[in-house]
C-alpha cells in the first residue's frame, strides 16, 4: 500500500469536505438572513446553491468508496473515511432543510406579520451557531468543541418548543394567522432539524478523533 498516496487522498477528502461545509454554512447563513433582512433574493440564492451541494455529496462519496476499495484503510484512516461518509450526508440534509426554510421565507418574508419575528430569528441564529461550531470542530479535530455542540443542541430544542407553543396560541386566538403560523411551525421544525444534524456531525468528529461512539450514550449501559 502506498501510504503517500493514501495521505494525499485523505487530505483531498478533507479539503473537499471543508469546501462543501463552507458552502452549506453559507446556505444556512443566507437562509437566516433572508428573513432577518427581509430579502427574498437571499432565499433564492439558497435554492441555487443546493445543486452544488448535491454535486459535492456525490463526488465526496465516490472518493470515500474509492479509498475504502483501493486503500483498505485501518484505524484512524478508516475512521476518517467512515466519518466523512456520514458527515457529507448530514451536510446534504442541512442544505435541504435550508432550501425548505428558504422556500417558505420567500412566501412570507414581505407579508405583514402579526407574529413576533424575534423567535424565528433567534432559533435560526442559534442553529447557525451550532452548524458553524460543528464544522469548526471537524476542521480542528476539537472534541471539546464538538461536545459543546451536543450540549447546546438543548438550547435550540427549547427554543423550538417555546416558539411552537407561542405560535399555536396565536393561531388559536386568530384564525387569520393560521396560514402564516403553519409556515412558521414548519420553518422552526427545519431549524431544529438543522441543529440536530450539526449535533450528528459533532458526534462523528468525536468518533473520528477518539474512536468511540458518542451517539445514543444511554446504550452504554448495556452488558
Amino acid at each position, binding site marked *: *500500500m502506498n*501510504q503517500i498516496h*493514501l495521505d494525499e487522498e485523505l487530505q483531498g477528502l478533507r479539503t473537499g469536505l471543508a469546501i462543501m461545509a463552507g458552502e452549506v454554512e453559507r446556505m444556512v447563513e443566507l437562509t437566516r438572513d433572508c428573513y432577518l433582512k427581509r430579502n427574498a433574493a437571499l432565499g433564492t440564492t439558497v435554492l441555487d446553491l443546493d445543486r452544488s451541494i448535491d454535486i459535492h455529496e456525490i463526488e465526496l462519496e465516490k472518493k470515500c468508496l474509492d479509498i475504502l476499495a483501493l486503500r*483498505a*484503510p*485501518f*484505524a*484512524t*484512516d*478508516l*475512521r476518517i473515511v467512515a466519518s466523512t461518509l456520514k458527515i457529507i450526508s448530514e451536510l446534504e440534509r442541512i442544505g435541504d432543510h435550508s432550501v425548505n426554510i428558504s422556500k417558505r421565507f420567500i412566501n412570507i418574508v414581505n407579508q405583514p406579520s402579526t407574529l413576533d419575528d424575534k423567535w424565528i430569528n433567534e432559533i435560526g441564529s442559534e442553529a447557525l451557531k451550532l452548524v458553524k461550531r460543528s464544522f469548526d470542530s471537524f476542521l480542528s479535530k476539537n472534541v471539546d468543541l464538538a461536545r459543546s455542540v451536543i450540549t447546546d443542541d438543548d438550547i435550540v430544542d427549547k427554543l423550538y418548543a417555546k416558539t411552537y407553543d407561542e405560535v399555536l396560541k396565536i393561531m388559536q386566538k386568530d384564525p387569520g394567522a393560521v396560514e402564516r403560523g403553519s409556515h412558521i411551525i414548519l420553518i422552526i421544525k427545519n431549524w431544529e432539524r438543522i441543529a440536530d444534524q450539526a449535533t450528528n456531525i459533532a458526534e462523528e468528529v468525536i468518533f473520528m478523533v477518539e*474512536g*468511540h461512539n458518542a451517539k445514543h450514550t444511554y446504550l452504554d449501559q448495556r452488558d
Partner: protein
Amino acid sequence: MVNERITDSTTKNATNDNEVISIQNFNFFYGPTQALFNIDLSVNQHTVMALIGPSGCGKSTLLRSINRMNDLIDGAYVQGKVMVNGIDIYDKSCDVIELRRNIGMVFQKSNPFPKSIFENVCYGLRIAGITDKEFIEQSVEQSLRDAGLWDEVKDRLRENAMGLSGGQQQRLCIARALCVKPQILLMDEPCSALDPIATTKIEELIFNLKKSYTIIIVTHNMQQAARVSDFTSFFWLGKLIEVGKTEKIFTNPSIKITEDYISGRFG
C-alpha cells in the same frame, strides 16, 4: 519508548476455563541475542489469534516456541513458561513428540513429501505406528474434507502430491496436520506464496477450522489478519506491544506504534 503493554479486558478474560495456551513472562534467546522479552499472552479455545509485526519482531519465534520447534537451534534457550492445557511444555517431563502431535504446524511454503496424496495425509498416523487400514482411510478422507480438498483429489489419492497446485499443496499440508487430530494449529504465513483464490480458500478454511481447533497465525497481510482472526497481537522488537480483539486493534488501537504499523506508516 513503550512502557506498558495494552491488553484489553476481553483478552484478560481469556484467563478462564477456555484458555488453551498461556504464555507467561516468556523470554527467548538465540545464544547471546534476546529475541523475545517478557511475553504474556493467552489464547482461548476455538479462537484464531493473529500475530502481526514487522520482520524480525519475534512473532515467528514465538509461534515456533509453542510446539518447541526452536529446540533444534544451537544455543537457543528460553525463560518463562508456555502452558498448554495447564502443562508447562518446557518442563523436563513434557513429551515433545506428543506435544507436536497435539500442536500441528503449517509453514509459509507448502512442503508435501514426494509421496502420494494419500500417504502424505496419513504420514503422521503411520509414524505413530497405526496400522488399522480402515481407520487410516477414514482419517485421510475426514482430514481432506476438513481441509476442503476432498472433492478435488478423491479420484487421484494415489497420485504424487507434487502434482498438486500450490494452493492444493498447502491445503494438503493442513490435512496432514489435521490427520493426527491436533488441538492447536500453528500457521506461519500460510498464504504468502498463494494467489488470491487459493488464499481465499485457506482463509475460509481457517474460519471453518476454528469450530474444532485453536489457531495461531503469523501473517504480514493486515487485511488477512483482520479477516480471519478473533484476536490480534502486535509485536515490535521482540516485545508484545498490544493485544486485543481484532476489530478493536484495526479500528481504534490504543498504542501509536500499533496504529502506525497497521496503517502502513511504520518507520
